[in-house]
C-alpha cells in the first residue's frame, strides 16, 4: 500500500524537475528579448541571458524563476520606468547590469523591485544611472548580496535610494557597494534585518537611514563621505558593531545620528574625521563600548533626554571636543575610557589615572547655549577659561566625569 505512493511521489518529483527547463536569451537564440522569455517560461525555470544589450523595461516576474546573466548582459531601461518587478516567491536574479531607470516625481521607479514576496535572492547586480536601486516592498526572508549600485544623484528631491526596505522582515543585505545615490540603504518599518559588509560612499544624504525598524543588526560596514552620515531614528534593539564612519565632514554632517533609539548596542565602531562623531538625541539605555573616536570635531554630542547610557572602554583621540552636553543634568556614565587630552597622573601604575577626567569643556557648554560663540574657536581667551573650568568646574555638570580614565588607549583587536 505504501510503496505505490512512494513511487508516485518519486515520479511526480522527477517529472516536476524534468520540467524545470533552462531558457536562453540572446540575439541568435529563439528568445530575443527577456520579456517573452519570462512570459513563456514555466515556474521554476532558469532563464540564462547571454551577453548583449536589451532595451526593455516593465518586466514583471509573476512566477518562481531563476534569472542568470552571463558576462553581465545590459538591460537598458532608456529612462522609461521601472525595470524588473518581482511579484512571486523563490525568485533569483544574478549577474545583470541594469542601467537607465526612469525618473519620476510621482512613482518610485526602481531597477529591481520585490513586492510581497518571500525567499528571493538578488545578487551580483550592477546598477547604474538609476532612480531607486533595489526596492523591497513587504518582502520577507530574502537576500541582497554583492550588488554594486552607482548612482548619479545631484539633488535630493530628484533622486532615489540605493537599497530601500519598506515593511520587510528577515532580509540580509550583505557585501553591497552603494555610491552617489540619495540614501545608500534605507529602512522603514523593517524588522530583523542584517546589514553586513556593505560600503556606502559619497551619497547625497545618508549612508544608512533607519526609521521605525526594530531588532536590526548592522556590522562591519563602511560609511564614508556621505552628505549627512548615518541616521538611526525611532527604533529599538539595534546592534551596531564594527562599522567605520569616516569623513562625514560638513557644517550639518555627523558620523552617526541617534534619535529616539532605545536599548541598543554600539560597539567596536570607528568614528574618524566626522564633524560630529555621534549625535545623540532622546536615546536611552544604549551601551557604547570599545569604540574609537579619532579627529572628530565633536566626538559625542549629547542633545538632551538621554538617560542611562553607558560609555565604557572607548578611545577618544584628538577630537576638538570630546563630549558636548547642553544641560547640567547627567544620567549617563563614563567609565574607563581613554582620553587623549587627559593630563592626569598615575602614581600606583595600574594604568588608571588618579584624577578623574572631565570630558566636557566649558567652551563646548557655552557653544551649546549660544551657538554664535563658536566663532571664538581657538582664541586664547577660550583656552584660558577652559583651563580654569577644568581646575574648578562651575558650569559643566559636576557628576559628568570619568572616574577611571585610562592612561593608554584600549586595544580593540583583542576583543
Amino acid at each position: 500500500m505504501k510503496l505505490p505512493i512512494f513511487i508516485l511521489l518519486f515520479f511526480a518529483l522527477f517529472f516536476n524537475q524534468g520540467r524545470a527547463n533552462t531558457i536562453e536569451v540572446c540575439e541568435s537564440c529563439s528568445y530575443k528579448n527577456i520579456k517573452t522569455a519570462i512570459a513563456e517560461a514555466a515556474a521554476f525555470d532558469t532563464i540564462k541571458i547571454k551577453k548583449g544589450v536589451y532595451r526593455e523595461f516593465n518586466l514583471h516576474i509573476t512566477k518562481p524563476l531563476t534569472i542568470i546573466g552571463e558576462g553581465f548582459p545590459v538591460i537598458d531601461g532608456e529612462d522609461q520606468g521601472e525595470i524588473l518587478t518581482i511579484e512571486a516567491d523563490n525568485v533569483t536574479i544574478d549577474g545583470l547590469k541594469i542601467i537607465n531607470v526612469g525618473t519620476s516625481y510621482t512613482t518610485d521607479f526602481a531597477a529591481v523591485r520585490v513586492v510581497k514576496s518571500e525567499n528571493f535572492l538578488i545578487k551580483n547586480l550592477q546598477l547604474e544611472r538609476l532612480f531607486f536601486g533595489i526596492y523591497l516592498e513587504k518582502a520577507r526572508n530574502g537576500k541582497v548580496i554583492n550588488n554594486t549600485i552607482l548612482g548619479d544623484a545631484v539633488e535630493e528631491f530628484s533622486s532615489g535610494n540605493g537599497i530601500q526596505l519598506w515593511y520587510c522582515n528577515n532580509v540580509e543585505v550583505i557585501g553591497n557597494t552603494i555610491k552617489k545615490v540619495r540614501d545608500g540603504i534605507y529602512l522603514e518599518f523593517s524588522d530583523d534585518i542584517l546589514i553586513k559588509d556593505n560600503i556606502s560612499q559619497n551619497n547625497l544624504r545618508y549612508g544608512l537611514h533607519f526609521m521605525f525598524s526594530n531588532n536590526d543588526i548592522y556590522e562591519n560596514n563602511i560609511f564614508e563621505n556621505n552628505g549627512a552620515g548615518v541616521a538611526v531614528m525611532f527604533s529599538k534593539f539595534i546592534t551596531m558593531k564594527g562599522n567605520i564612519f569616516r569623513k562625514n565632514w560638513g557644517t550639518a554632517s555627523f558620523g552617526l545620528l541617534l534619535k529616539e533609539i532605545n536599548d541598543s548596542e554600539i560597539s567596536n565602531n570607528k568614528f574618524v574625521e566626522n564633524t560630529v562623531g555621534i549625535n545623540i538625541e532622546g536615546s536611552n539605555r544604549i551601551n557604547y563600548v570599545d569604540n574609537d573616536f579619532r579627529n572628530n570635531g565633536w566626538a559625542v554630542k549629547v542633545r538632551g533626554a538621554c538617560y542611562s547610557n553607558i560609555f565604557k572602554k572607548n578611545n577618544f583621540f584628538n577630537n576638538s571636543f570630546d563630549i558636548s552636553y547642553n544641560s547640567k543634568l547627567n544620567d549617563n556614565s563614563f567609565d574607563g575610557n581613554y582620553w587623549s587630552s587627559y593630563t592626569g597622573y598615575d602614581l600606583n601604575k595600574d594604568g588608571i589615572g588618579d584624577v578623574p577626567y572631565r570630558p566636557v569643556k566649558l567652551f563646548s557648554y557655552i557653544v551649546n547655549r549660544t551657538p554664535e560663540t563658536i566663532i571664538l574657536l581657538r582664541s586664547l581667551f577660550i583656552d584660558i577659561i577652559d583651563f580654569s573650568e577644568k581646575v574648578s568646574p562651575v558650569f559643566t555638570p559636576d557628576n559628568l566625569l570619568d572616574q577611571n580614565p585610562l592612561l593608554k588607549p584600549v586595544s580593540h583587536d583583542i576583543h
Partner: protein
Amino acid sequence: MFKILKYSFYDLMRSRWSYVYFLFYLMLGFVLLFLNNDLSKAVITLMNVIIILVPLIGTIFGVMYYYNSKEFTELLLAQPVKRSSIFLGQYFGVALSLAMSLVIGLGLPFIFYGIFNSDAIANFSLLLITGVFLTLIFTALAFVIALTNDNKIKGFGYAILLWLFLAVIYDGIFLMSLVFFEDYPLDKFSLIATMLNPIDLSRVLILLKMDISALLGYTGAVFQKFFGTNQGIILSSAMLILWVSVPLYFIRRISNRKDF
C-alpha cells in the same frame, strides 16, 4: 625717509634680536613639520602661534626699538630732515625686518617640505599675509604708544596692556556680550565685532579657509558667506589696511607736534 628706513633696517638686521626672532620661527617651522609631516595640520598649529605671538613681539619690539634709539633720533632731529620721515622710516625699518624674519623663518622649512607642490599653499600664504599685517599693525601701535609716553615703564605697560586687551580681554567681552544677548539675532553683531579686532579678524580669516571651518556650523556659514564674497574680502583687507594706516597717521601727527 628711505635713507632712515634703510639705516634702521640694516641696523636691525645686524642686531641679535632679529636673528633670535628669525631662528625661533625657523626652529618652530622645522620642529612642527618634523613632528607631523602634514602641511595643512602644521598650518593650523602655526596659526595659534602666529595669532598670539606676532602681535606680542611686534608691540614689545616696536616699543623697545623706539626707546633704545631715542638718542639717535634726537641727533637726527637736529638735522634738516622732515620729522615724519624720521619716525616713519624707523617704523618701517622695524616692521619690515620683523616681517622678513617671519616670512623667511617660516617660509624656509615649508619650502623644504614641498609647500609649492601642496594644496596648503593658499592657506600658508594667507597665514603669512595675515602675519605680516599683524606685524605692521602692532608695531605701528607700539610706536604711537612710545611717542606719547616718554616714561619707558609706562610705555611698556601700555604696550603690554594693548596686546592683552586685543588678544584676550576683547574676546572675553565679545563672549560675554554674545551670551548676554543670546535672545537676539547675533550674526551681524559677531561679524562686526570680529572685523573690529585685527587678531580676531586674522583668526577667522584663516579658520574659514581650513577644514576646521565645518565646526563653525551655522555661524560659520554666515561668516563663510560674508568672507567668501568679493565685498567681504575687500572689506576685511580694508579693515586690516585701516588698522595700519590710522596708527601711521597718528605717528605723523604726534611726531610733528611733539616737543622733544
